[in-house]
């Protein structure tokens, strides 16, 4: 990992302004932002680790834990909520056997996450599966999609 991080750092001048994009690169390459990466950057860039942690927890685009190969994002904005997104979430968690409080399966194949309004309310409820937006989702449709993904390997 150190080597990967060194490489990321090389692309950037020692400058706090680039810190967000540096962190984005870390996430791009490692899939998430592990504590060691923050400690490494903190030392190299002479920025306190606590400040970097503040940044990555402020922006929801950064993840502190490893994420699954497949990302299922369920919208729970007002429109989607009214149209039953909560049901979708519950069903999905059961299907994927994700323990309460968690969001990723133990085998790191799936991550289920919730967002607030993805901006296509007319299609509520909305689920994004691996970056593809699916509107008017039902539990059956969702399970079918999941089964397909599970079958792939």
């Amino acid at each position, binding site marked *: 990992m150190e080597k990967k991080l060194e490489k990321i750092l090389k692309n950037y001048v020692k400058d706090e302004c680039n810190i967000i994009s540096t962190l984005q690169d870390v996430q791009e390459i490692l899939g998430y932002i592990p504590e060691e990466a923050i400690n490494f950057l*903190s030392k190299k860039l002479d920025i306190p680790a*606590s400040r970097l*942690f503040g940044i990555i927890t402020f922006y929801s685009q950064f993840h502190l834990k490893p994420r699954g190969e497949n990302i299922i994002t369920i919208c729970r904005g007002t429109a989607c909520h009214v149209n039953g997104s909560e049901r979708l979430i519950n069903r999905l968690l059961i299907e994927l056997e994700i323990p309460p409080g968690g969001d990723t399966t133990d085998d790191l194949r799936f991550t289920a996450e919730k967002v607030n309004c993805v901006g296509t309310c007319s299609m509520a409820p909305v689920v994004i599966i691996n970056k593809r937006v699916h509107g008017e989702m039902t539990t059956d449709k969702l399970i079918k999609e999941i089964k397909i993904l599970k079958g792939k390997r």
Partner: protein
Amino acid sequence: MVTLKIDGMKVTVRKLSTVLDAAKKLDIPIPTLCHHPELSPFGGCRLCIVEVQGMARPATACTTIAKEGMIVTTTSPYLEKLRKTILELLLSDHPNDCMVCERAGDCTLQELAYFYNIRENRFVGEKRPFIKKDENPFVERSMEKCILCGQCVRVCDEIQGVGAIDFAYKGFNTRVCASYEKDLNCEFCGQCVAVCPTGALTGKMWAHKGRQKDIEQVDTVCPYCGCGCNLTLHVRRNEIIRVSSKKDTINEGWLCMKGRFGYGFINSDERLTKPLIRTAPKKHSADSGQWTNPPNNPPTPPLAKGGEGGFERGGNGGVDSSLLTPHSSLFREVSWEEALNFVAKRLGEIKERYGADSIGGLSSARCTNEENYLFQKFMRAVIGTNNVDNCVRYCHSSTFAGLASVFGSGAMTNSVPEIENHDVIFVIGSNTTETHPIIGLKMKKAVKNGAELIIADPRRIELVRFAKIWLQHRPGTDVALLNSIMHVIVKEDLIDKKFIEERTEGFESFKQSLAEYTPEEGERITGVPKEDIIKVALLYGNAVRPGIYYTMGITQHSHGTENVYAIANLALMTGNLGRESTGVNPLRGQNNVQGATDMGCIPDFYPGYQKVNIPGIKQKFEMAWGVKLSDKVGLTATEIINAAFKGKLKASYIMGENPVLSDPDVNHTIKALGKLDFLVVQDIFMTETAELADVVLPAACFAEKDGTFTNTARRIQRVRKAVEPPGEAKEDSWIIMELANLFGYKMRYNYIGEVFHEAGKAWPAIAGITYGRIEKIGLQWPCPTLDHPGTLYLFKGGFPRGKAAFSTIRYRPSEELPDNEYPFLLSTGRQLFQYHTGSMTRKIDAINKVSPEAYIEIHPDDAKQLGVNDGDTVKVSSRRGSIDIKVLISERPLKGMTFIPFHFKEAAANVLTSSVLDPIARIPELKVCAVKIEPIHQI
């Protein structure tokens, strides 16, 4: 300047002042929660809102800049309603915990709730749960009480320069935490605790010890380092339960971990409480053949010690293990009368038989000025010898020998508050942030104000982070480094000709001597790139208000005095002396090392640096003290040990020092002390040295007596009694006086201030200082008259000895350098959390938790080569002994160099060090010796 009107009153303030500053000037109170005068404005709590004419909405006074003609209202029913709402919102998720909160009575939030009469809350809301992670022994974090004022975040970043904590997450989930919400792992300065306006941050060790009721607050001075921070001790039922510091002190209320949390030793149940007389035979007495049994010496049962089984001693690590037995089997408890009579009798006999010069005294830089004055008076007037010294020998005698002979004074030329105004700070051989934390903070502040920081240190010390340039020279090559810097300064013509002309002598021949130290030659010897040498020369040479700071990295060498001369040369040739924020500043290690030396606890000087061998001066003191005095310069501390070893010195009186651990070559010291006919040790704990004594006298610690300490910047400050000493322990001054009286020499003072007054009569530089004048803030000597304001910086009008002389100094290598057999270079020193030989800090559980054991810092490359990992135990040996110690792989030292802190007796660094002395100052070379490292293969 701008003038504005607040609540109908006119006020004029400096440009860029805030409305809050202006209101403060008028004494108009505005409630605040997130504001701190020393920190950058935040504007987060909105409690300080005011109405400004012409502005649509209320503005926060702490961030609004005062403008000409502004009309401000700080209170109105509307504002008060808003403030109350803000408070109600803050309290909506605040646990109603005041009953048991450590902060109650000292909490800004609680106080505001009281004034705004908030009982029920309109907005009872969801509470924020926090998973408590605080195993750390110092800072208790109850973050559900946090109001997100950000003061802790800012103080940690802006003042302490650490940045251990920051805001994380957002919205309702916002919290203040360390990276990945881990436990704190920081410098534990407690600055965050001090600024927190609520009970979110408190001291762990404060818990359930008492809050406001029945608490007495006593202002005094920190007993640890030479910064001389002012402390306020909170006392309840004869126990110190908390330490704080006021904002209007020289340390501005900031403290380091030792000062803030290092008070546990005072109440330690390991304190000595009764005088002890040895019953067991001495270990090394066999070869001295002189040892006599104390009179009436029946075998006594072991000391009963409050249920606890005496001492727990760690591994032996190179120190003769048979010496580390519980003292109950070595000593018996006696009355003061018996102990003192016995001491007087034995010292009397030895003086009679071998002469006064067969007795040597070591005084303590931890004790007060008054006690040091009495100690040297006892040795000189009662015993009749000048054999008296203090630990300055081990740290700054080379400073003294160097600076005093050049400038006529060996003290710091500037004062602590001046540090922030330097434009260039040159720190050489001083790990300031760890050894002098508050001076370190000042340096960081100076850097913030725009000063350029130059560090010369073989290790990557913490200050390097703040430095403009870091010279990593090989240990022991300071003279070569400084000479090559001066070479460039001459070449670039950055010398101060007028200063050289008017105030110095010997420049021409000195200048010649620099010719050979070209930057190239400097690079060859020191390993520092020549470009960097040139850069530093230009930086320092062009500076307007530069300050040089150094400590043991300069002085603890066999050429320590020469190092100091080189520094003096640098300051002289550039004329950088005798102005505000400009000078040469040796930082004193211990709280009162300056005072102990000032008070004459050195073998060649009476109080105030008056030579013992000048007849006129001797006469003056003979008149004052009413006895004949010796004009023979006494033995230094190092010589006292050596003379004991050779059997020339027969008895020693050691007050509050632990030479067994602090002196080089432990085994030599133990043997030497073992050969004494008679050894008296006066201390607050059974130290390794006390274990060798014939009589141990229990003393009072700094919190148990009145007096004064002199900080590293010559500031004399009041020490005040807060609690009674434990058991029968007595103030050192009482013990010395009683002893003197037993010798038939009358020492009687009604109160301790009289001793100070007497010292002032002997030494004009402090004649103008009285306890009354230093009631609140200390004064810096020289202060010759009662109306003299004290002296911030020295040599304004010139040097006391007339012209200062340049000294020609040539680089010579350290005495013991690595070779094939002992390939590594070892330096020893201190670390932040422990203090000196640990006789105080190591009694404190909380400190031992964060700094439990000794280690040897090894560069990663060397570790790889040796095949050792972090935490492995290795055997480190020198020509004098060996210790087992854990490895800490670190990029701090240079390759080939290692470092061991000397606080730990289980792996006593000084088993390894060499006792080679500087020929002039007789300071031991503790910074350079050769060692080998062998992995120990665990089976």
